[in-house]
């Protein structure tokens, strides 16, 4: 929306509204830590919530970063240190958000920590709850011989730490990437980096089976080339899903790779003998992420990731002013992108709350309380959660009210109100406009 070119109509006045300069960051992973740090640099006080006992998030379970040379551990640890030494950040670990009321500039939140409920006020909320790797493995195979990518990451950390573990690495390892959902790109990148890591640490043969190799990220094409030159065998699957069966000595994975097909009718069916099979798990929104979506009343995409799939919202905005998203909770896994989003979220917060005051045009949209039937249609239709129901001191509903600071003046409530009780004063097209245009 263009804030400057519009002249403010006579019925609308500008009001100076105080906003709370404390910011709540939900999630203590990479995105949350970075957002908090950048916010303090801009002069904000931050409350950082983390459900686990310590911050860090799922990046800590990675043995290395996708296509990047930096060490994941260092990347997070340096930020955790910086946060700990920063007096402007209050870190609450083992804590969950359980209640949110109010609106941009003055959210009232309830936080549950160690059986106690803490009440807090803040002007904006940044959701950085990250993503979670499901443990369940689809497909067949004995549990000892079949592990998840996540488990492989764990083993690689061990492998990096001790020589003796290296000799115990199975000699034939097959990694499968299923091509489904936003996370397929992540698992393709993850399979490549882990295949290369195994190759470098052990003498194992490594096979990667995937539909498409994801190289759309920093350093991923180099990673792909390096993996191939180090002897990682990559099969690009066609039509057929990989078939797994148990053999006397291990597992046999049958894949179809069209580039391996030959003249004379051979279909390119290849059987890979392996003693360790790595299958992908699903990356999902964490369980309390789903309840958070309801709590915050924000819309999401069809797969349940935070933020609706809408070009206007990207990268970090939600349908509600004052609530932002950053990082894995949006379905993103690229560390560079996550850090950029964290910075972006900090900028949005700053442009909303700086100086602790905002000039808000009041009365662009107004409810005529005498006409309002309190039918809740506006409350249900407002896409930005900018309508509340006024109650009298006995708690009785009186009428709907527009929350000017959250209102985007889209006019949807005006169009929906069956009692004609809501009018738009500024920028409104009127009947005479229609008449003139005809």
């Amino acid at each position, binding site marked *: 929306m263009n804030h400057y070119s519009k002249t403010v109509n006579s019925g609308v006045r500008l009001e100076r509204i105080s906003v709370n300069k404390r910011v709540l960051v939900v999630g203590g992973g990479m995105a949350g830590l970075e957002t908090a740090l950048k916010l303090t640099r801009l002069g904000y006080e931050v409350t950082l919530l983390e459900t686990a006992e310590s911050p860090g998030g799922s990046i800590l379970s990675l043995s290395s970063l996708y296509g990047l040379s930096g060490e994941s551990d260092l990347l997070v640890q340096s930020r955790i240190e910086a946060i700990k030494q920063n007096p402007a950040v209050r870190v609450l670990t083992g804590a969950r958000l359980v209640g949110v009321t109010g609106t941009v500039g003055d959210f009232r939140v309830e936080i549950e920590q160690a059986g106690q409920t803490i009440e807090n006020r803040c002007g904006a909320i940044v959701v950085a709850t990250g993503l979670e790797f499901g443990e369940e493995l689809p497909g067949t195979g004995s549990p000892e011989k079949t592990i998840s990518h996540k488990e492989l990451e764990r083993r690689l950390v061990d492998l990096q730490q001790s020589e003796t573990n290296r000799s115990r690495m199975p000699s034939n390892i097959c990694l499968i990437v299923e091509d489904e959902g936003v996370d397929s790109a992540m698992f393709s990148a993850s399979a490549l980096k882990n295949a290369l890591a195994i190759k470098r640490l052990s003498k194992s043969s490594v096979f990667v089976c995937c539909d498409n190799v994801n190289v759309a990220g920093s350093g991923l094409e180099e990673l792909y080339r390096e993996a191939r030159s180090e002897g990682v065998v990559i099969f690009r699957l*066609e039509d057929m899903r990989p078939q797994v069966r148990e053999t006397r000595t291990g597992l046999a994975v049958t894949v179809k790779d069209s580039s391996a097909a030959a003249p004379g009718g051979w279909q390119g069916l290849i059987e890979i003998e392996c003693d360790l099979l790595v299958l992908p798990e699903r990356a999902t929104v964490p369980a309390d992420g789903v309840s958070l979506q309801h709590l915050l009343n924000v819309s999401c995409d069809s797969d349940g990731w935070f933020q609706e799939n809408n070009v206007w919202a990207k990268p970090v905005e939600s349908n509600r002013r004052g609530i932002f998203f950053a990082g894995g909770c949006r379905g993103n896994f690229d560390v560079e992108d996550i850090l950029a989003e964290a910075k972006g979220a900090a900028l949005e917060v700053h442009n909303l709350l700086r100086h602790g005051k905002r000039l808000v045009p009041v009365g662009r949209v107004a409810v005529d309380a005498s006409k309002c039937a309190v039918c809740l249609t506006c409350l249900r239709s407002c896409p930005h959660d900018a309508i509340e129901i006024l109650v009298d001191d006995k708690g009785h509903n009186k009428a709907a009210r527009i929350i000017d600071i959250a209102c985007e003046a889209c006019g949807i409530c005006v169009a929906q109100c069956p009692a004609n009780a809501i009018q738009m004063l500024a920028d409104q097209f009127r009947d005479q406009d229609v008449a003139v245009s005809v």
Partner: protein
Amino acid sequence: MPESDLVVIGGGIAGVTAALGAAESAYSVYIVEKNADIGGHGARLCCKATDACRQCGACVVADKLDQVRSNPHISILTNTEVEQVSGSAGDFHVSLLCRDINEKTFLDTAAVIVASGFEPFDARHKPQLGYRTSANVVTGLDLEEQIRLTGSVARPSDGRPPSRIAFIQCVGSRDAHIGNDYCSRVCCKYALRMAGLAQSLLPELDVAVFYMDIQIAGKGFHEFYQTCRETMRFVRSIPVSVRESDSEALEVQYEDSAKGRLVRETFDMVVLSVGMVPARDATDLATILGIDAGSCGFFANPEPTDTNRTAVEGIWLAGACQGPKDIEGSIAHARAAAMDAVSFLSSRRNILSEPLL
């Protein structure tokens, strides 16, 4: 000498977004654009929606340009190039050459954001693909412009709708022979979106996509790719040549891996999904600014995960000058650069006006 808080070099989507980010914090911003108008490549793209929005972001560019033109904190200098930058963070002196009047001007600024963008790969460097020698071989960007201006898909030779169209991926990307050893990240998305749009405009259209790997990224794209697989033919092979026969039909030669030999197939239009390469003047600009031009020509960042940072304090990178990015990615990157600049500027000088909704 005019003073400003921030100078943004480049008026494409990244530059415009970064400028807006700082202007919303009430800092005064100059956008220096070497072309006659702001907008860059993003302003040439077409909307790729069919029955629903395909998230290409072309409309966001239009909206942002509209915003930036009427923002009182932003001044736009077009037809202007940066000639020299001296000084240091908080006190840069920028000398500019305005080509309209062929006159030098000077600007003092506290911070600089480099958003000098990219160039599409020049497909003439792959002569075997017939670009500019065969009329009906076009680049993705050519097709974008055609759809944007005419609302339809037509063969350039005779203006008639094609019945068989081939999209060739990775033209100028993932190609070590020409030194472009990286994925351009945007081509799979724009090619499939345009192919989908072309099919919705011409329901009988036969589409073949020649590719190495489809780069699935972003919300909803995987589902879209699956629907594309139902209506388009995906051939995992990059053609070796495109030749024009007499009837203006294009003969595409590629290795059919299932048959294990070269095959020829005719199409009446071929779209080359050209990738992104560094801007021609990137090296010069790097020298002027004293930043790292990077090994492949995209500006490099000294710290691996902070892609906005440069070796010079007070100068940040935004958008595709740092590496291939789509509109969504450029916007995200530019907002991050704006945050760096605002953070730096606010430590020096506090702006007292309150933000207006």
